[in-house]
């Protein structure tokens, strides 16, 4: 997926929305910017399929050499799919954070959190200001 076509949470997760048979599906990943800043990823922990997530809640953790960082979902819903192969292939997140490095897919139950997402330009600006 092209970074310009994604939406971004201020906490550096990207979101790709698509239509499923029962409503919207949100695919979540970590932005290339955040992956670069965290550097040298060594572990990832993702939720189980079927788990229900609240908007703004932590849904997993990612460890780099020196830090464990929580991952946050900007939308509420049920976990439909998890990219479980990442645990043994963390380079995938480094190599293709906006594509093969996706983390989870959520069946959106409440799209209120979508209003807080940033488009690519606004997200780029946030990243520059954060540094």
């Amino acid at each position, binding site marked *: 997926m092209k970074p310009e076509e994604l939406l971004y949470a201020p906490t550096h997760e990207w979101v790709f929305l698509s239509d499923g048979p029962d409503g919207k599906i949100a695919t979540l990943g970590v932005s290339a910017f955040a992956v670069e800043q965290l550097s*040298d990823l060594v572990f990832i922990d993702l939720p189980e399929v079927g788990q229900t997530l609240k908007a703004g809640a932590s849904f997993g*953790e990612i*460890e780099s050499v*020196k*830090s*464990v*960082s*929580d991952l946050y979902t900007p939308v509420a819903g049920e976990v439909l799919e998890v990219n479980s192969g990442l645990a043994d292939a963390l380079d995938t997140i480094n190599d293709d954070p906006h594509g093969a490095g996706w983390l989870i897919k959520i069946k959106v139950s409440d799209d209120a959190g979508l209003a807080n997402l940033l488009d690519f330009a606004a997200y780029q600006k946030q990243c520059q200001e954060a*540094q």
Partner: protein
Amino acid sequence: MKSARLLIDQPLPAARNMAIDEALLESANIEGLTTLRFYQWAAPSLSLGYFQKHAERYTHAPSRNIDMVRRSTGGGAIVHHHEWTYSFTTPIVDRTSRHVEQLFWTFHETLVGMLAGAGLTANIYEPAADQNAPPAAEPFLCFLRRARGDILLDGHKIVGSAQRRRQRAVLQHGGILLKKSPHAPELLGIFDLAGDVLAPSVSVDHNTLIDWSSLLGRRLGFDFSTGNISVDEQQRADHIEAEKFTADAWTLRR
């Protein structure tokens, strides 16, 4: 200068130490409080890094029978015996900011300065350009690992730190290895390595920690004042200790 709290605690059990740090992280996350806490452990204890498998402890015979807790911070296992541990909890704007990573350097650079003042030449580890990525299999013990920013004395790691980054706050843990422990005899501490440089009467006491906090305060823009954990934080720590750090669901989760 922003006001911040300095806590120098009495030795506490492993799960209690971790629970207090988590309660302080919540205070930073919710209330914006900054706290620097120094503490020791009531009994020799092993803390696992957040992602480590608990069964790995049985590969390390000298520490296999001491208390164990799982940290919320990453990295390798630490034998807490003859050492000081610190935790630093503070609000952050963005968990990917360089300011957050800079905390490692600030803590370690000031400590290297303190050691230099005591006549010890420690250095901050900087891997060769082609050694930046972590090796596929890391040693079980944190102090046998090497990561950029660790403090080395005579080639031995004596200080390491790791962080837990939440959306609005960070917890930084660090361990300062003072002396060799029978539960980790392969590791030497500052006093083992100092030779004749440190007189037998020298110790790392509260005044030393207060001096370090002053240096840190100047670098970080905080005015640290000695304080206490609030009643609310104690109650939250009670809950966190019972629900998390003494629970098998947490400790044996991997």
